[in-house]
């Protein structure tokens, strides 16, 4: 059993931030994945989805569910991340004032992703975009 899905994400579209995560959560429930595993996957995917909305221009989420794991690849066109190590530091954020006023921009998203995935990899080109790959085993 392999399920593949893709979702489009638009930069700045906070009204729909989380929609993809919500759909994936429902799907994982239908597939009877361990609820504790779903919780972690949902945290990581939501943070990654919101990072595209908050920091990039547009992106695509590719979900691949296999028998014993889920692979989530988020590829965006955007400013990219110059120093990935620095971006990973909890509390570091370049979010705009508007985004911070909404309660985003605590600089906790990437740390949440790290804590809630079995594998996480970021590659990025400044001025072009970022690819985040996350894998969780069931």
């Amino acid at each position, binding site marked *: 059993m392999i399920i593949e899905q893709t979702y489009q994400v638009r930069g700045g579209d*906070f*009204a729909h*931030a*989380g*929609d993809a*995560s*919500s759909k994936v*959560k429902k799907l994982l429930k239908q597939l009877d994945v361990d609820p504790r595993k779903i*919780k972690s996957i*949902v*945290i990581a995917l*939501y*943070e990654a989805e*919101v990072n595209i909305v908050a920091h990039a221009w547009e992106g695509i989420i590719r979900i691949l569910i296999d028998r014993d794991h889920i692979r989530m690849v988020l590829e965006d066109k955007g400013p990219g991340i110059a120093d990935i190590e620095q971006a990973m530091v909890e509390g570091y954020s370049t979010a705009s004032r508007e985004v911070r006023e*909404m*309660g*985003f921009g*605590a*600089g*906790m*998203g990437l*740390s*949440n992703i790290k*804590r*809630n995935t079995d594998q996480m990899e970021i590659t990025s080109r400044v001025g072009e975009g970022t690819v985040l790959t996350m894998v969780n085993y069931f």
Partner: protein
Amino acid sequence: MKVIDLVNALGLEVFSGQAGLEKEIAGGYVSDLLSDVMGFAREGEVWVTLQTHQNVMAVASLKDLAAVILVKGFTPEPDTIEHSNEEHIPLLGTPLSTFEVAGRLYALLQHHKGVLSLES
């Protein structure tokens, strides 16, 4: 303790999500940072915040929270209300400050735990 018991005990306004008023409360979480709630709130908790936009309900639903309380007389935006109704997660309001609501919620939950342990 159910969400409806909390509404009655604190005289909270129910903006929306009435369908979820019978949900059990597992605890409380206080934060205005969405990633903090995403990372650390737990299923069944009541979230106390001053954020009023619809991303609050997105987070509450992804985390299976029991309810959201808006403090200091803040009112929700229309799409926040809509989302709360869709997800059956009560959106509640109070004129009290975060400090006061959190204190009362904590006391209520502790009291309730005490009552339960006396009964058993």
